[in-house]
């Protein structure tokens, strides 16, 4: 075992990259849950985003177009969920599972001819002299634009939820859909938009895995990141800043176990690989006691009949 093989600067830069898919997916889900909807289909929307982004980037040669396609793909798939839960009033847990099962199959179908293909690379943002600052430069100023977009999105979601009328309405719908409906807000429409935002974010997160983090396409490559994102929302008690913190924590763990694998630690690879999942469970256990932050209408079906 040779721990000195782990370069701390590359490690930190790496965990920022590892955290980004989680940030996107979890942030989208946070907004969805704030509107009172539990969408368990994050994994499905992510994998659809991963393949849509990958295929578009390969075909057009433009990674940015790929990310746009991923957002559209994720949002389109989430519309299916919105239709099931908002129009046909189906159970949200079952519909989310359906979305994940369908998404995993559909992505495999779409991605058949893309296995083993190398996607075009998204260049890093040019920060000029900032990049050359020792330590800080390689950690913070040597990434692609999407990583910074993820961070900006956290700030934006936080600000919108906290300071704007739109955020207030969204939260009102999530806390009490009857009251919001009585005030004249279109509960179904607002929730559908929130679900689509969640889908687009999950799609971006998925594409970040297939285009930047890995970068290649394999079936089922999201490997539970969508589910960890769901856990992360609980971990963050529905607060964007805590979500960011949580994503970095998980990104750090993922990166650490990969680095330890690389450094040849005496722990078998399989036990290292299962560690992010076990830590997710532990974190859930520690934080489950306090559910007061959860939106009061979370997961309840709304029908404006009475």
């Amino acid at each position, binding site marked *: 075992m040779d721990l000195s093989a782990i370069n701390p600067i590359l490690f930190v830069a790496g965990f920022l990259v590892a955290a980004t898919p989680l940030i996107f997916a979890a942030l989208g889900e946070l907004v969805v849950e704030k509107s009172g909807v539990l969408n*368990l289909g994050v994994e499905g929307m992510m994998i659809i985003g991963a393949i849509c982004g990958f295929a578009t980037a390969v075909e057009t040669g433009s990674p940015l177009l790929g990310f746009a396609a991923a957002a559209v793909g994720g949002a389109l798939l989430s519309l*299916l969920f919105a*239709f*099931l839960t908002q129009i*046909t*009033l*189906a*159970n949200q*847990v*079952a*519909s989310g*599972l*359906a979305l994940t*099962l*369908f*998404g*995993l*199959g*559909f992505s*495999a*179908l779409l991605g*058949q001819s893309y296995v083993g293909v190398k996607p075009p690379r998204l260049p890093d943002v040019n920060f000029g002299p900032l990049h050359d600052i020792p330590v800080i430069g390689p950690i913070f100023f040597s990434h692609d634009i999407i990583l910074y977009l993820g961070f900006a999105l956290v700030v934006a979601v936080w600000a919108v939820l906290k300071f704007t009328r739109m955020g207030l309405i969204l939260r009102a719908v999530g806390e009490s859909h009857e009251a919001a409906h009585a005030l004249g807000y279109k509960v179904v429409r607002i929730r559908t938009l929130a679900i689509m935002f969640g889908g687009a974010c999950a799609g971006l997160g998925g594409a970040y895995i297939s285009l930047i983090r890995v970068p290649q396409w394999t*079936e089922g490559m999201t*490997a*539970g990141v969508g*589910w*960890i994102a*769901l*856990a992360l929302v*609980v971990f963050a008690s529905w607060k964007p800043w805590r979500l960011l913190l949580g994503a970095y924590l998980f990104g750090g763990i993922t990166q650490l176990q990969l680095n330890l694998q690389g450094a040849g630690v005496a722990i*078998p690879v*399989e*036990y290292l*690989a*299962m560690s992010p*999942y*076990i830590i*997710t*469970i532990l974190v*859930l*256990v520690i934080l*489950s*006691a306090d*559910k007061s932050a959860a939106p009061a209408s979370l997961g309840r079906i709304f*029908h404006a*009949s009475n």
Partner: protein
Amino acid sequence: MMRLEKRPQASRAFSYATPVLAVIATMVFGGALFAVLGKDPLASIMTIFWEPLFGDFAFYYRPQLLVKGAPLVLIAIGLSLGFKAGIWNIGAEGQYIMGALCGAGAGLAFYPAESVFIFPIMVLAGALGGWVWAMIPAVLKVKFGTNEILVSLMLVYVAEQFLASASLGLLKNPEGFGFPGSRNLQQYASAHNGELFAGSGMHWGVVAALIAVIFAYVLLARHRLGFAIRVTGEAPRAARFSGVNPTRLVLFCMGMSGLLAGLAGMFEVAGPAGQITIDFNVGYGFTAIIVAFLGRLHPVGILLAGGLMALTYIGGDIAQSQLGLPAAAIQVFQGMLLFFLLAFDLFTHYRLRLGRTEVA
């Protein structure tokens, strides 16, 4: 304008019609999907649903129906108990893996001794493995209020890593020339879950699945615990007032579904699969979720749904080899089925009214 009106009571007719409608809609849209893929839609659908039952090689495929259907039914029966009560164990895939690992491990521990007791011990070990794996989310839920959906799902990934570790290390065949994977249990008479009647496809897992169906039927229809499950699902508040103990219910439903999933894994590894390999699991634990819903969470319905889903697996394999239909297309097909089912279920609880919407 159309509007929805909640039915005072769920429609029985629609409750039965929904799965049929969903299957028809899936055939139509699935056919369209196959057409997009450049395959003849009618031929594809015929290959999937007709060929295994009445085609030229049906004598070979019909037994397969039992082989593929048994684990699906076994797992789905367990899941349906929890789903009925609003307890969501979606990590059956993990429990299935752990059942297989424990079952195979118990059997291989005796290798090469031959005894009639080995197989029963394996059955117990398999059930125990699945049960323990499901008790983790159950206990965490009742002790700490942890979300059982997320924990059970996370444990699938953990179980997959255990599977990889076992097939590369602990359970690796010492005479396997370095290839990953355990000894083949089909070549170990005492541990082999073989066909009970040659050529029938009937193995102990099929028997267990049928027993589970009967057991679940009696439990739900006649037993106090079954009543508690149904009441909790339909009216949680009423259930609390009537003295249902939610803790016991969670432990029972999760435990039972884990136990059955573990059994399914054990019967599979000792029979049709034969050995523990890295990719031994093929997603029965997830497909069983579709089976449970398609069967309306009713034991008899699940039996039928399990058969239908097994048919799509076998027919999908045939379509793959004969028509070149990609394997993923069948997965999409199965996912679609759940979508349509959930969508059509609207009419079980609501009726569509035509007419002007009045201002409330």
